[in-house]
């Protein structure tokens, strides 16, 4: 097929856009070039979008302009206003928007094509998968957003036969999809697929607890990319296919990394209903022995920190909730002034999305060379004088290493219990998201400093100035 001039221009622009996307992502491999990488990727996307306006099939422009202005304004205002601490839910929401778009585009294209001739075979497969995956990603992301925004409880939500019911919904989607591929469907079939997939997305994410959010967010990211790629297959639009697959690859890699960091499979995250089993097991373990925790004060902690040579700070979701990132930077600076070696130990699943702690600490201007990954820092705890655990819980629980009965047994953790002193900043003795008792809190070397993380950190800085 020979393209005319206009189609040629579009085709070449799409190729350029694909190259820009790949180079943009390539530049994300270093913090120094990442920002220009994002710009390159944006240039690629906007080039593709602008050139699409030349497409001959577009006949009405005013609706397009109106939709883009409304959507674009909402997007830009939200992106500028959102607090850095609200980043997990923002990422979740943006993800859902893309999934919803992909589902609607697949569905619409099917409706349009089937007016001319029945859509069967490979095209129908792409339509079904684009619609179903996009819809699951849309409602799944919206539920994840609602949980992170605390519009819904972050506790797992369950009902009897939940897994069987979700399995049934999946079967319905596959069966109806099959009728669309081989023929025998009716006009309402694609709508039912759309509706059932929307329900499935919400039901899949509802039973997942807050601590599993990094895996969920990464998975939804991958799903949206894959849905976009299927949409590209339906439209025979290669730039959409390339962009969608790049996103899908990225989301899949992140999902695998997060799963590995929790020692859990994807199936276990989505169907394990982690919180429920964990509460039972944790409760049983806690009932066995009477255990005591040792409390400490800001003043005593400040003295311990001031005379330490090496301090490691372990941030967790609690630090983000308390918005204590600036206070923790002040503390680190105060200690460095005294010649103390301060490092931050970052667990891959600390927080609610991949890399959450890095963004949080970067916002407070903490240089990224002070942030050390789990594998690099674990050998150093033996020689660390004081570990300050701020709002982290499960990622420092030695039960993951020692207690085969623990629900998190086998999960790689930060070995903070090997340090000479451990000080845990915590709101109260309440357990983490999964209700797992933390063996660290009862160790001889552990002291608890109760209170809001930000307030505790601020009083530590004050106390440190007087030491």
């Amino acid at each position, binding site marked *: 097929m020979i393209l005319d001039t206009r189609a040629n221009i579009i085709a070449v622009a799409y190729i350029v856009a694909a190259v820009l996307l*790949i180079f943009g*992502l390539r530049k994300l*491999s270093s*913090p*120094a070039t990442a*920002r220009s990488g994002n710009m390159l*990727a944006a240039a690629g996307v*906007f080039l*593709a*979008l602008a050139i*699409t*306006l030349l497409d001959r*099939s*577009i006949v009405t422009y005013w*609706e*397009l302009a*109106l*939709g*883009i202005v409304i*959507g674009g304004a909402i*997007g830009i205002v*939200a*992106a500028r206003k*959102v607090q*850095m601490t609200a*980043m997990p839910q*923002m*990422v979740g929401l943006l993800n859902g*928007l893309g999934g919803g*778009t*992909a589902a*609607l*585009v697949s569905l*619409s*294209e099917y*409706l*349009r094509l089937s007016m001319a001739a029945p859509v069967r075979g490979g*095209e129908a497969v792409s339509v079904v998968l684009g619609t179903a995956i996009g819809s699951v990603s849309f409602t799944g992301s919206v539920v994840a957003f609602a949980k992170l925004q605390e519009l819904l409880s972050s506790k797992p939500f369950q009902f009897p036969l939940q897994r069987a019911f979700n399995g049934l919904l999946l079967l319905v989607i596959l069966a109806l999809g099959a009728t669309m591929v081989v023929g025998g469907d009716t006009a309402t079939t694609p709508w039912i697929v759309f509706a059932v997939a929307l329900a499935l997305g919400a039901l899949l994410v509802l039973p997942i607890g807050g601590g599993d959010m990094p895996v969920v967010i990464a998975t939804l*990211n991958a799903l949206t*990319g894959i849905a*976009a790629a299927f*949409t590209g297959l339906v439209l025979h639009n290669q730039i*959409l*296919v*390339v962009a969608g*697959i790049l*996103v*899908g690859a*990225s989301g899949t*890699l*992140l999902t695998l*990394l997060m799963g590995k960091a929790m020692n859990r499979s994807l199936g276990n995250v989505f169907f394990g209903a982690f919180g429920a089993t964990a509460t039972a097991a944790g409760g049983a373990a806690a009932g066995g022995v009477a255990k005591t925790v040792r409390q400490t004060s800001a003043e005593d902690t400040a003295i311990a920190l001031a005379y330490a040579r090496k301090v490691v700070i372990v941030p967790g979701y609690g630090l983000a909730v308390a918005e204590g990132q600036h206070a923790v930077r002040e503390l680190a600076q105060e200690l460095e002034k005294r010649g103390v070696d301060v490092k931050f130990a970052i667990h891959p699943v600390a927080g609610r999305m991949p*890399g*959450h702690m890095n963004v949080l600490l*970067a916002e407070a201007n903490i*240089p*990224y*060379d002070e*942030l050390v*990954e789990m594998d690099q820092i674990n050998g150093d705890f033996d020689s660390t004088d004081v570990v300050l655990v701020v709002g982290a819980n499960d990622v420092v629980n030695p039960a993951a290493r020692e207690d085969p009965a623990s629900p998190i047994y086998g999960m790689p953790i930060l070995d903070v219990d090997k340090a000479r002193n451990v000080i845990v900043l915590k709101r109260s003795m309440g357990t983490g998201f999964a209700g797992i008792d933390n063996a660290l809190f009862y160790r001889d070397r552990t002291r608890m400093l109760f209170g809001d993380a930000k307030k505790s950190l601020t009083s530590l800085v004050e106390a440190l100035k007087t030491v």
Partner: protein
Amino acid sequence: MTRELVLSIYVVILAVFTGYEVISRVPSILHTPLMSATNAIHGIVLLGAMLVLGAADTPVLHVLGFIAVVLGAANVFGGFVVTDRMLEMFKKKPEARK
């Protein structure tokens, strides 16, 4: 299957390997910006929404297409702006700290 679909499947396969090679170089400190940037990139489905709405000839397609364009536009504009805000915090050199 149409010939175009077959060619698209080749594109998929090549893109999977390219994606894997490029993304696996991204360090873990940049995982959130990576996710946010890829979030913005999949906003390119706005392109599909534009094609649907621009060619819509039934009321249903007008409605579906319009919703898709609004969602897609919010995704792509919001995504790149929020990623840029995030990366602005990372670009600071350690020495530049006050």
